[in-house]
């Protein structure tokens, strides 16, 4: 499936021929070394150019990976992931585990991006959790952002660690797939403590933090949000108002009214996230 989609996307005939030949080798039980050589050679045999997709192609990819973000993919990455999907599932765990141990940075990124495309994706849960311990931002992003793997396979504890570390690493939370569906009380409490630590050090917190509090606003948390409404910047106040409103608190309308924020003016969480991300990119 993935092979067909990828061949349709590759613009260069020579690249298609190479991928097709290697995919055949890999899927018909060639030695693991053949797969390793092909996987490493993908940048040399294809291209490191970004993807250009037609809408139909993007839809096909999203049918396999609902969070697929074409802006973060290159041609050789797509080829590497395609080769991963060609490995027989009876052996792919052993073959890929070895590769995780020897991968360079770009290979690691492709490996983590590729996991959710595998039929037995769940077998790699511990590997994905371990991957989050990296200090290399692109590798962390490959797992945490634009990837459905964590939502589908992580238990609450690793999920919470991932979101908290994403905050520490100043990653854009709106790109964590399933963020709203995986909200939980424990995460809301952890992030509240985190906000207090930051405030004690006279530092700000990402406005996206409060997105995780929706539905878990108790009295102390409401007090914090009131404080943000009173003292925060424009975007911080929007985030606090959104969290209060979406939590369906009885007093929500009164609080917003008192803060002078009209519900119609509130942005979407994703818009807030994008604005934060743009600020960071600018510098």
């Amino acid at each position, binding site marked *: 499936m993935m092979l067909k989609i990828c061949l349709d996307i590759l613009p260069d005939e020579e690249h298609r021929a190479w991928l097709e030949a290697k995919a055949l080798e890999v899927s018909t039980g060639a030695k693991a070394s053949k797969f390793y050589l092909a996987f490493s050679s993908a940048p040399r045999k294809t291209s490191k150019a970004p993807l250009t997709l037609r809408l139909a192609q993007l839809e096909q990819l999203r049918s396999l990976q609902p969070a697929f973000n074409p802006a973060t993919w290159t041609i050789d990455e797509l080829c590497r992931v395609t080769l991963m999907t060609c490995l027989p599932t009876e052996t792919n765990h052993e073959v890929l585990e070895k590769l995780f141990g*020897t991968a360079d940075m770009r290979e690691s990124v492709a490996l983590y991006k590729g996991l959710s495309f595998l039929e037995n994706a769940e077998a790699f849960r511990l590997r994905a959790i371990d991957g989050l311990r990296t200090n290399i931002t692109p590798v962390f992003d490959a797992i945490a952002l634009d990837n459905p793997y964590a939502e589908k396979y992580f238990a609450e504890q690793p999920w919470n660690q991932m979101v908290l570390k994403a905050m520490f690493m100043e990653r854009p939370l709106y790109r964590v797939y399933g963020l709203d569906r995986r909200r939980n009380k424990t995460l809301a409490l952890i992030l509240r403590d985190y906000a207090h630590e930051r405030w004690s050090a006279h530092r700000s917190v990402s406005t996206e933090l409060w997105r995780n509090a929706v539905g878990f606003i108790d009295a102390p948390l409401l007090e914090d949000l009131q404080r943000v409404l009173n003292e925060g910047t424009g975007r911080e106040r929007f985030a606090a108002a959104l969290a209060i409103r979406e939590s369906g608190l009885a007093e929500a309308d009164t609080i917003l009214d008192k803060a002078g924020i009209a519900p119609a003016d509130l942005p979407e969480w994703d818009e807030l996230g994008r604005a934060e991300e743009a600020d960071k990119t600018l510098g």
Partner: protein
Amino acid sequence: MNFIDPHVHMISRTTDDYEAMRKAGVVAVIEPAFWTGQPRTEAGTFKDYFSSILGWERFRASQFGIKHYCTIGLNSKESNNEALAEEVMELLPMFAAKEGVVAIGEIGYDDQTAAEDKYFRLQIELAKEIDFPIMIHTPHRDKKRGTYRSMDVLEEHGMDPTMVVIDHNNEETVREVLDRGYWAAFTIYPNTKMGNERMVEIVKEYGTDRIIVNSAADWGVSDPLAVPKTAALMLQRGLTENDVHLTCYQNALTVYGKNGEMTEADWVDGFEVDQNALFEGNRVLRGQAPKAGSSKNIINN
């Protein structure tokens, strides 16, 4: 002038060396996989060594404005531990084709044993399979016969000599190596290999076609500035700038650029050097003030 040192074991060198090399005009280096002075006893140490020369060492070099490439291979000396060699051979396909690997090497003979021969041949086949150049280490002892034998075996396997650098040549081996169509590299290394006055005479006698100068600097008494120093001596002794350009830069680029991993575009316009950059959470600075700028001006030269 810009230089390439196409054989230097930076993993054994200090940051002072990197600074001095960049200041002397070295823009790119190739780090061949070799032994590390003491025999390894586990395949895992090879794995981490290969990862180091592909990862951390490349990053460290970039912090001083030098582009770092490497070769991957099982060296002849450690091929003699056959149980270990088998495991290392399993590792090679996981590293050989990675980005920044310009050749299979250093491979060849040390004592010219049967085990060395076996793994040499297997690695020639690996290079052929992925269409990579080969860097040949020629032995210290019984050098002439070991060098000729290396070429015989390469030819037996149908390896194209224009894809092979025969390294550590001397006056006794160079003629045959060039006549048989190979690239001939010379290592300027005090006491055991070549001095650079002898090197100047070799270029005067044999010209610059397919001749390459390197330092092979490592953990022994060696000189990471051997290439720029030899270049300076060549000019002093009446060779032209073009002679220096070919033997101390271009020839290495031509042969080690053959698989497409090393191109002049990687350094010619400079590249961004940010000593605050992190590699897996580490940086090379230990208390110094960071320098930043393009690779061309990071070190006063």
